[in-house]
């Protein structure tokens, strides 16, 4: 469903991505794991067509992301690292606005907005202005805008960053509920999060993929002994 071929991305003389290639099948839940500054956000931005790659291709459903960017964007729900919220709007207004921009048919908008508000446990704050909500709620509003058009692919950039443990648990539950029939890509540097959510892990270091395997395979070393994800991560990042 998603295929990248030798993606590179330069910011001036800095190379953020160094020939990233991978393939993700429909329905997979993939975690991008890496330290801060490893290139996770850049990679996600390239996948969503927000940033063009310096070289290489992103092919989604057989179409090049840059050439068919509008069609591809309809299939993608994206939550950037900082939830992109209009602080003066109410939650309902914002989700409705997102639905309008994401081609939800006019007749279905109201029903879809209400459905998403329920899914993201936002009903009790739907009439509140976004600026006065707690960070946990704001994060869920960010997820609500990402899923309002029922996208086939969900790309979440550090969705639990900066939340308290209870909020983190709620957001993880929410993501688990969204997994059905969707391809989910989630980036994080929190190892336990990957263990709870992802089936497959891509470990990124300095703009390169240094490991790409299922979680169960990664947690077994060469001799078949169990090892923790933390050990694997630290070893690869040495």
């Amino acid at each position, binding site marked *: 469903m998603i295929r990248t071929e030798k993606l590179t991305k330069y910011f001036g003389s800095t190379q953020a991505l160094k020939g990233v290639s991978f393939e993700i099948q429909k329905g997979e839940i993939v975690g991008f794991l890496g330290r801060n500054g490893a290139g996770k956000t850049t990679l996600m*931005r390239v996948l*969503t*067509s*927000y*940033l*063009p790659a310096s070289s290489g291709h992103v092919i989604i459903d057989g179409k090049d992301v840059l050439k068919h960017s*509008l*069609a591809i*964007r*309809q299939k*993608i729900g*994206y939550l*950037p690292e*900082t*939830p*992109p*919220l*209009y*602080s*003066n*709007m109410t939650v309902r*207004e914002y989700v409705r*606005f*997102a639905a*309008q*921009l*994401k*081609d939800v048919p*006019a007749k279905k908008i109201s029903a879809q907005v209400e459905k998403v508000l329920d899914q993201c446990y936002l009903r009790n704050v739907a009439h509140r202005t976004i600026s006065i909500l707690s960070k946990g709620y704001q994060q869920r509003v960010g997820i609500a*805008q990402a899923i309002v058009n029922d996208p086939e692919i969900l790309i979440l950039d550090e969705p639990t960053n900066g939340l308290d443990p209870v909020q983190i648990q709620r957001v993880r539950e929410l993501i688990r509920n969204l997994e059905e029939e969707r391809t989910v890509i989630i980036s994080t540097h929190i190892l336990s999060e990957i263990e709870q959510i992802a089936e497959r892990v891509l470990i990124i270091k300095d703009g390169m993929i240094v490991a790409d395997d299922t979680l169960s395979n990664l947690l077994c070393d060469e001799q078949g002994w169990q090892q923790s994800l933390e050990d694997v991560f630290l070893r690869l990042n040495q």
Partner: protein
Amino acid sequence: MNKVWAITRKELAAYFKSPVAYIILFVTICVFNMFFFMIIDSNREATLRDVFKVMEFLFVFIVPLLTMKTFAEEKASGTMEFLMTTPTRNTQIVFGKYLGSIIFFTLIIAMTSVYYFIIELFAAPDRAAVLTGYLGVWLEGAMFIAIGLLISSLTQSQIVAAICSYIVLFLLYFSTSFTQYTHGAVEEVVRYTATFSHAENFAAGLITTSDLTYYLSTIIFCLVLTRISIENRLWR
């Protein structure tokens, strides 16, 4: 079109949800009223020609306040990333935002229509000249907004956007004063670039192709550049 309208409504709601919109409306109307009274009182003429001139001058100050946040704020808060990853064309984003500012600006102009009715009550003003005068003022504002939108799309800082818009609008407005230092073809160019020489004709009841071309081509040019500017991913 639905998306353009959705963005326009969002822009208008943003204006009216902050006190800035009400302050701009209140202060503008107070200042306009004051000048209207002073001009009519000193000229004793049933014409709005000088009122239009004052309005145009004041728009140089007001428009940057309207346009400074259009794109700069979206970039600074990260919502530009949201807009540009939805299946919305860049042209629709630019149009939506432009329309939002234009509607707010039209509201300010509409509030001044009461001046016409006041002079109509006491004398017989030249109706055609009043209409063309309003068209001139509106076109000039529409052009200023297009320039402000372009400048806002070039920066992440609202303050930088406002200051740069002031510089450009001041230069455009006052460039007739520079004609005394120029000669020949340069003088012609400077005179044509100045907004002052074009707005004057409208206020006098004249609609010329040259003036219309000046306003419309600048508006289209700025909107096209704005679209290119948000497409240019250097700032991301």
